[in-house]
């Protein structure tokens, strides 16, 4: 039995932060039902910056990676019937997960107190920018906004230079939160098993971003400006340009570590020594002396290296495409992708029948009246 076997999650997570958290729960064996609405799609369904194929019905790769292993239903939560239907699913579920703008769950009348009326032991996992409370609770932000407001940008940048954010292509806080938030949901699930009680988890991404540079908060005066790549764990740590134009990343405890490399006794010596030879030669010589050294890889080089020596960070989905894998792996019950991301409403009929207990006639009536939306009956593609 996988760790989360028997745990049913109603996933209202969108884009990266929410959807990637419930994807990790699904990878761990939870029964994850992605809930969208006839007039509200996960924006990631549309967010393909570049079209991966000429097939206009193909799901964008970013959406696919963050929604694998899930089922999909579409319910109009703004109608009384849709709301009642959703609450019936809540009664048969363990977790509701959302990362909407603060205020949306209230406007949908789906706050924790409402959900509890239908299921006293429900776990509501809320992932937001600033949390449920406080003067900035309603502030709108994306990952890099939070790097600025949480202190991470203040700590990132060249020596004496301007603060720097990770930017739209990495959007760091939105990636890392999934590992944390999934951990909190699993902890709440463990706690519920012991006590029988559910909980509302209020997780603020801004707080997580500060937590992940928490040591700086203990001594703010020591962080009056930025220090490039230097860290307290090494005597010297930085990137140096090699003769072939590549950058070499070096972490050096002391210059005494350099025994086979002659006449390098300071930063300037090391810079000149690396600049005088190709990166591969510099890296090999430094590593032979036991010094941590590596050529800085581009994304394509990372992919090529992964293809040479695959590991669990990336994986292939059943349709054969490459996707995000897992941030860790379990030996006994490995995380795996067993199902491709769903077309909208693929599982509406099944979930309403199996979980909601509705009859076929009731379900078809809901569909006809637009309370729910179902994917067109499967048209099997012959390869």
């Amino acid at each position, binding site marked *: 039995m996988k760790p989360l076997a028997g745990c049913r999650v109603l996933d209202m997570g969108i884009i990266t932060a929410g959807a990637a958290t419930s994807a990790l729960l699904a990878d761990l064996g939870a029964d994850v039902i992605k809930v969208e609405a006839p007039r509200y799609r996960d924006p990631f369904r549309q967010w393909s910056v570049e079209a991966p194929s000429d097939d206009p019905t193909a799901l964008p790769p970013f959406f696919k990676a963050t929604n694998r292993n899930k089922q999909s239903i579409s319910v109009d939560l703004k109608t009384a019937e849709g709301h009642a239907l959703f609450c019936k699913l809540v009664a048969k579920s363990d977790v509701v997960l959302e990362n909407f703008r603060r205020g949306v769950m209230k406007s949908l009348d789906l706050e924790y107190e409402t959900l509890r009326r239908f299921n006293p032991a429900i776990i509501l996992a809320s992932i937001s920018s600033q949390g449920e409370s406080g003067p900035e609770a309603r502030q709108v932000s994306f990952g890099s906004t939070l790097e600025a407001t949480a202190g991470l940008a203040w*700590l990132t940048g060249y020596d004496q230079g301007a603060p720097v954010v990770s930017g739209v292509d990495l959007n760091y806080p939105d990636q890392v939160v999934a590992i944390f938030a999934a951990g909190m949901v*699993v902890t709440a699930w463990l706690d519920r098993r012991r006590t029988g009680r559910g909980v509302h988890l209020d997780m603020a991404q801004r707080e997580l971003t500060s937590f992940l540079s928490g040591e700086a908060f203990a001594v703010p005066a020591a962080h009056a400006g930025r220090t490039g790549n230097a860290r307290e764990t090494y005597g010297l740590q930085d990137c140096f340009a090699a003769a072939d134009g590549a950058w070499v*990343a070096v972490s050096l405890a002391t210059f005494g570590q350099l025994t086979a490399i002659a006449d390098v006794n300071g930063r300037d010596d090391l810079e000149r020594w690396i600049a005088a030879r190709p990166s591969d030669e510099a890296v090999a010589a430094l590593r032979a002396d036991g010094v941590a050294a590596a050529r800085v890889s*581009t994304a*394509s080089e990372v992919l090529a290296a992964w293809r040479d020596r695959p590991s669990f960070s990336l994986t292939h989905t059943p349709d054969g495409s490459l996707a995000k894998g897992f941030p860790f792996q379990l030996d006994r019950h490995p995380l795996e992708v067993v199902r491709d991301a769903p077309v909208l409403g693929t599982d509406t009929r099944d979930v309403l029948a199996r979980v909601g207990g509705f009859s076929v006639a009731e379900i078809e009536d809901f569909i006809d009246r637009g309370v729910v939306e179902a994917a067109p009956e499967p048209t099997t593609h012959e390869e």
Partner: protein
Amino acid sequence: MESEAPQSARASFPLAGVIAVERASAHCPLDVRLSLGLAGRMLADLGAEVIKLEPREGDPLRATGPRIGQTSALFAFLNAGKKFVCVDSDAEAEARIIAGSDALLRDPEPAPGSPSRVEAIASLLPGGDRGQEADSEFTLLAYSGLLDIVGDPDRAPLQLGGHQLAYGVGLALFTGIVAGLAEEGGAMETVRANFLDTGTWLNWKGVIAPSWGGSSPSRQGDAAEWRTVRCADGWVALVHRQDEWPALKALCNDPRLDDPRFQKRAERRRHSAEVSAIVEEHLRQYSRHEIRAMTLANRLPLGPVWTVEELHEDSQYGERGFLVPVCLPDGAQAVVPRIPVIWGDRIFGPGALDDIAVPIAEGVQ
């Protein structure tokens, strides 16, 4: 909101009753110690009893700066609320302690003894200790492509502040451990996390893009679509998507932003340096507090860059009790972030930082 829990209240914490042992071998790289430390700190905050095994001379992280009085800030942040035990190469004593635990956090070097439920192993590279001596958090940032993304195109690649990758691995260890504890059936589970896989996973958008012919940009510096720009008293992160473009234009009220090249995101993205420079001219007249007020009023996702010092006075953090004091062994105090979750109406601040343990053979029972 309740905070600060006496021992009795800890019985109601979510991980009450769980015993975890944290063990770094003598050869464990410093950066892996950071990962083990963070996972242990999170377990302790949530109510587990965390026993950190230390050699007689102490964890080498105790020697890192900067310091608060006599204590390393880094060590204090990672180890508040844990119980330190010095077994001083007494393998039998060590095995006994591990055998009494539910979970063991360690580096790839095998430990004497097994916990009852979960073993979590952290390493720099996949597959354990292969070549660990010639790697670090920084070289793994290089291998996973994360280093290539941040900074200016003509300058050295930059890592994000602090120890993001080591702590990312720490989060992975934590989530792996609680997943292992959730498994029914009572058999042992082994969790594996390493810097290369966590780094590649965090960088997945860039890394998989070439597999479908997409592009993965390297450092873009001032040409980045989202970047920091100057304001009257510091910097602000300029963050916007298509939805916020009209509000941003309204804020600047500058006809140059009506340029047809800037109206669609895909095209605007190619002219980011130009767009940011125009917006910066306008933001320069506002302070960060004024920009904060505008973001709340206009739904603009602009981010004032606060210093760590300023965040100690931040009203949002204050109202949510986010920064909490930790008592240090010499009587001094460190103020650090609590675990970033409010659990119903409860918050979980870390316990005190204990004094270094004397070897058990010499200790008074």
